[in-house]
C-alpha cells in the first residue's frame, strides 16, 4: 500500500453550477474512513473555498486530497492569472471577484483567509501569468 490515499478532482472552470461538488465527495470519503468530524469539517471548508476560488479566478484546475496516517494534505493547482500580491489577497474582505460572481453571493474576500483559518499550514506558490498552487495541511492528533 502507498503511504497515502489520494482523491483527485478535475475542477471544471466553465461550470459554476457544479462548483463545490469535489468538497462534498471528499467529505463523504473522509467520513467513511472514520475520521474525526472536526477534521472533516475543516478539510471540507478549506477544500470548498479553494474549489470556488479556482472556478471564479482561474478557470478551473486540479485538486488533490491526500490522506496520510497523521495528516491530510490538500493541493490545489491551477493555470490561472496568478496572485500579484499574496499578502494583500490574504486580507479578509479583499476581493477581485467580478460583479457577476458577487451577485451570486460569492467573492466576499474570505476565501483565502478561511482556508488559512481552517488548516494548520498553508503555502501559496503563485506566479503571475503562470498559475497558483496552494498546499494546505490539516494535522490529525
Amino acid at each position: 500500500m502507498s503511504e497515502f490515499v489520494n482523491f483527485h478532482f478535475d475542477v471544471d472552470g466553465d461550470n459554476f453550477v457544479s462548483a463545490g461538488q469535489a468538497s462534498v465527495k471528499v467529505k463523504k470519503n473522509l467520513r467513511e474512513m472514520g475520521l474525526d468530524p472536526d477534521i472533516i469539517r475543516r478539510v471540507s471548508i478549506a477544500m470548498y473555498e479553494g474549489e470556488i476560488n479556482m472556478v471564479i479566478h482561474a478557470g478551473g484546475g486540479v485538486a488533490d486530497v491526500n490522506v496520510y496516517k497523521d495528516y491530510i494534505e490538500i493541493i490545489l493547482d491551477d493555470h490561472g492569472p496568478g496572485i500579484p500580491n499574496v499578502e494583500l489577497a490574504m486580507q479578509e474582505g479583499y476581493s477581485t471577484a467580478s460583479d457577476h460572481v458577487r451577485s451570486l453571493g460569492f467573492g466576499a474576500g474570505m476565501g483565502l483567509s478561511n482556508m488559512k483559518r481552517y488548516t494548520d499550514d498553508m503555502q501559496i506558490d503563485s506566479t503571475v501569468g503562470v498559475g497558483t498552487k496552494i498546499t494546505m495541511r490539516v494535522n490529525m492528533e
Partner: protein
Amino acid sequence: MAKRKTCYRHSVELFVDKCTGCTTCLKHCPTEAIRVHDGKSEINPDRCIDCGECIRVCPHGARKALCNKWENHQEFKWKIALPAPALFGQFNDLEDADYVIQALLDIGFDDVFEVAQAAEYVSAYTRIYMKREGIKKPVLSSACPAVMRLISTRFPSLEENLLPLLPPMEIAAIMAKKKAKEEHPELDEDDIGIYFISPCPAKVSYINMGFGDYKSHVDVVISMSDVYFMILGVMRRDVQPQAASKAGMVGIGWASSGGEASAILNDKYLAADGIEHVVDILEKIEDGNIPDLEFIELNACTGGCVGGMMTIENPFIAKTRLQTVRRYMPVSRNFLAGDESNIPQEYFFGSTPSYDGLTFLSQDRLQAMQMMEAIQTLHEELPGIDCGACGSPTCRAFAEDIVKGLGPTIEDCVVRQAEKNIKTNKE
C-alpha cells in the same frame, strides 16, 4: 472485518412475496442503506434513518411501515389519543378541529391531547432557548426523527446545533399523562395508555427505540391512515361536537414545513423539506456555506409532516386544508407566563446516538486507508453506469461492498461480464 451488532429495530417492513428485486428502492434510498440480495430488497439497519422513501417509491407496494393496531391494544384502562397536527389536514372542508377530536372520543378514546398543544409550548420554549448565551447557531430543529438520525449518523459535527428539546409528540405524552393522573387520581400509572397517531415510520421508530438514552413516553403508536378510516365512519358534521380543541394556529402550523420555524418569531430562519434538500442544506451548513441564520427547520418529507408516508392526502392538498382549519383559530392557546424563562429539565433530551452508527470502513486508520485505496482501484474497473443490477445502488457502493467483504464479488457485475463476453466473441 469485524461485525458490529445492531440492536436498532426499524419500522419499515418488507413483504417478501411482493418484492420483485426491481432496484427502485435501491436507487432512491438517501443513505444508500438498501441492497438487493437474492432478488429481494434488504435494509441495512445501521444506515437506515426511517425516512420512508422506500415505502413511497416501491411500485409493488412491497414495503410498509410497522405500527400497532388499535384492536390489539385495548389493555389500558384510560386511553389517551395524541393526534399529530397533520391529522387535521386529512379531511375535506373541515372548518373546526373539534369534529376530529370528538370522533376520536367516539371511537373509544377516553381523552384527547393534541400534539399541536405541546407544539405551542415547544415553540415558546424554543424562543427562550434561542436567547441563551453561547448556544451554537443556527439552531437546528429536532422535531423530525429522520432528520435527527441523519444528523447523528452523517453530520455529527452539527449535533451541537440541535435544539436539545424533546419533540412535541413527547412533550404531549408527558403532559397528557400528568393531566390524566391529576384528573383521575383513581388511575394507576399502568392504567394510562398514550396512543400517538403517527404520520410517518420515523416517529414509530423513535417511539419504539427511543433516541440516544431517551426512552419515549408514548405507549402505543397507530398509523394515521388507520385512524383516518376509523374516524371517517363516525365523524358527524351535523352534530355539534362536545369536545373542544385546545390548540391554535401555531400548533396546527407545525404540520407543514415552515410552521415550526415561523413560530420562532424571528425572520432569520430557513425551512427545508424533502430528504434530498435536507441533505443538501446540512452539507451547506457544515461547509459554512449558508446565509447568517438563527434557526433551521428540516423535514424529511416533502411538505413537512403532512407529507408523511402514513397520511392519506397529498401534502399540498393537506396543507391547503389546514388553512381552512386554522381560519378561525386563535394564534396560540398554549403559552408561558410573560416572565417565565425556565425550561423544565424533563423536556430536554440528554444524548444523541453515537457517531459510529455509521458504517465505517475500519476503526484503524491505516486499515481504513488501505480499504479506501482498494475501493478506488476497484471502482475504476467498473462500468460506472450505476445500474444497480449487482444489488448495490452505485458502482462506488458496489466496490465498497466488495472491499468490506459484505458478500458480493466482482463477478456480480453483469455489465462487466457482458462486456467481457462481447470482447471474447469478437476475437
